[in-house]
């Protein structure tokens, strides 16, 4: 086994046993990334020097017998919409081209304190708006399983880098599916935690009532190890819950799904799915039954039919407000202008890409005088209705199973000029954000032409342990998905 292929758990064990050093692991991951980057373009920047220094410090601490943090020596990558002190944080936008944050995102601090080593920052759809990572101002990321396909989005670079073996874990953010859909497209685990489990301090805000940070990993165990670190409480994010967190590693010990009720949504069963996604979904239903779970059919009529228009009113509305801060005065790009208003208008016209402009415009419209009641207020009510349906559903089931997306990874360019078709890829993921629930995508096989097929489990609020135990049992039954070779044989 090559060092870049190791999981988080294997790196921790190997360092303790002195099988290899943290410097060796970091170099192996860095070499792997540098070899594949010309084909995959998952990263916007490397943190090679600081990373090497940290790896050497871990080795020194190991040699002198110091106590190490729980993720000491494990390299990772974060999506470039999370602040890293003194390291460019671009959100894949021209408007933040040169910007270096004055502080770290809470999750970056938590990982740093745990001894994990930042290796680079990942590409995304500009400001996390998109489902393919094609809407980046700095180039398109390729799917490491099939280079002519997209890796999904918006956390496409984070997903691709874990799938291709650059690092054993990365962080993404999920506002409407931006962790789960790329995890499905890239054949790895992706978790969108319950709203409020992970601090959002230092995550550049897109839609504050929907955004949540979560990990990508190649094993279920790694998911628990990373979640234990990033889900710490944070006094500086008032939306971060004060409830006590469990030890997520314990969830990995489940030996069956006996006594668990897993819901299948009637309305998704009738949805037109790609036949191979349907096959992967059916196979996963069978797996749940074999593990002893009871399968229950449930009805959630509003989420499939109306979740999408509801989301595409609320998310742009929040985005139009959050992105008002990019004004050419305080950070990033600033165009020459004679008046202050002109400075705003020109900077924003030059700095934002087409999809971001679309959403700012739609968001401004639905909040504007005369349209607020007709759109924004109606969508807020629909959101309540969707939440209410989930509350009822979780009275009769513990977990819900559905596909992550209706199709596997699509081709680059296929949907980029058809925004509404692109939005459709989120149909199964965005209701989870509207309700604030946790959702986990896992790999359930590959299509005949080699594209990963993902399915999604939705837990009840704070039900991450349920999701992790299902992931662990699934991995035990089907094995760990292989690492993508990025077109290199």
């Amino acid at each position: 086994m090559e060092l870049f292929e190791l999981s988080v758990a294997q790196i921790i064990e190997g360092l303790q046993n002195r099988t290899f050093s943290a410097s060796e692991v970091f170099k192996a991951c860095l070499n792997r990334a540098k070899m594949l980057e010309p084909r995959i373009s998952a990263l916007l920047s490397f943190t090679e020097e600081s990373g090497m220094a940290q790896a050497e410090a871990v080795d020194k601490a190991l040699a002198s017998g110091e106590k190490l943090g729980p993720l000491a020596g494990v390299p990772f990558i974060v999506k470039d919409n999370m602040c890293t002190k003194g390291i460019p944080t671009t959100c894949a936008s021209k408007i933040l081209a040169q910007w270096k944050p004055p502080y770290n995102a809470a999750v970056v601090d938590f990982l740093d304190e745990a001894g994990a080593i930042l290796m680079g920052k990942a590409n995304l759809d500009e400001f996390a708006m998109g489902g393919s990572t094609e809407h980046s101002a700095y180039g398109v990321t390729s799917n490491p399983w099939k280079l002519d396909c997209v890796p999904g989005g918006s956390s496409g670079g984070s997903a691709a880098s874990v799938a291709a073996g650059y690092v054993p874990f990365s962080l993404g953010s999920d506002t409407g599916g931006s962790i789960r859909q790329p995890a499905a497209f890239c054949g790895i685990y992706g978790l969108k935690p319950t709203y409020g489990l992970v601090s959002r301090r230092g995550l550049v805000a897109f839609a504050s009532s929907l955004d949540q940070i979560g990990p990508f990993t190649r094993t279920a165990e790694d998911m628990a190890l990373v979640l234990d670190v990033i889900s710490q409480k944070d006094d500086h994010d008032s939306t971060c819950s004060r409830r006590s967190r469990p030890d997520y590693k314990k969830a990995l010990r489940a030996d069956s799904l006996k006594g668990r009720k897993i819901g299948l949504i009637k309305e998704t069963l009738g949805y037109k799915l790609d036949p191979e996604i349907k096959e992967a979904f059916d196979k996963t239903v069978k797996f749940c039954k074999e593990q002893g779970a009871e399968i229950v059919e449930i009805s959630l009529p509003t989420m499939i039919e109306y979740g999408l228009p509801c989301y595409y009113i609320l998310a742009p509305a929040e985005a139009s407000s959050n992105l008002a801060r990019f004004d050419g005065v305080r950070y990033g790009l600033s165009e020459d202008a004679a008046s202050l208003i002109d400075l705003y208008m020109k900077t924003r016209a030059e700095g934002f890409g087409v999809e971001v402009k679309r959403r700012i415009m739609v968001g401004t419209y639905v909040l504007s005088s005369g349209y607020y009641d007709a759109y924004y207020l109606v969508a807020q009510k629909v959101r309540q209705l969707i939440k209410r349906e989930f509350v009822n559903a979780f009275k009769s089931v513990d977990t819900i199973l559905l596909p992550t997306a209706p199709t596997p990874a699509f081709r680059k360019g296929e949907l980029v000029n058809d925004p509404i078709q692109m939005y459709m890829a989120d149909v199964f993921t965005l209701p989870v954000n509207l309700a604030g629930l946790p959702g986990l995508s896992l790999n359930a096989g590959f299509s005949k032409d080699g594209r990963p097929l993902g399915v999604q489990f939705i837990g009840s609020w704070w039900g991450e342990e349920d999701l992790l135990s299902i992931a662990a049992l699934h991995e035990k039954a089907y094995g760990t998905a292989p690492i993508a070779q990025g077109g290199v044989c």
Partner: protein
Amino acid sequence: MAVSADDIRHVAALARLEITDDEVQAMHQHFEEILGYFNRLNELDLEGIDAFALKVDEEIPWREDKAVQSSVREDALDEAPYRHGDFFRVPRIVEED
């Protein structure tokens, strides 16, 4: 609700986005499509639903109102495109007599 090209220009002005005629046209088409889609929500019976009901299952946390030292001021100002001493510099907004 039909949208006109002038509506698009008005929204762009509200959003502080300079917009070209080509962009107005493209945005107009996008609005027509997506608003048609949004209007589907009117099929639902939303009588009696509180739009802003929050599912509060824990108390909203408060912390002590205590001044703490923040060290980001200089770094933040340093990242501004134009600074003047301890201020962000912008084009003149008040005309001289």
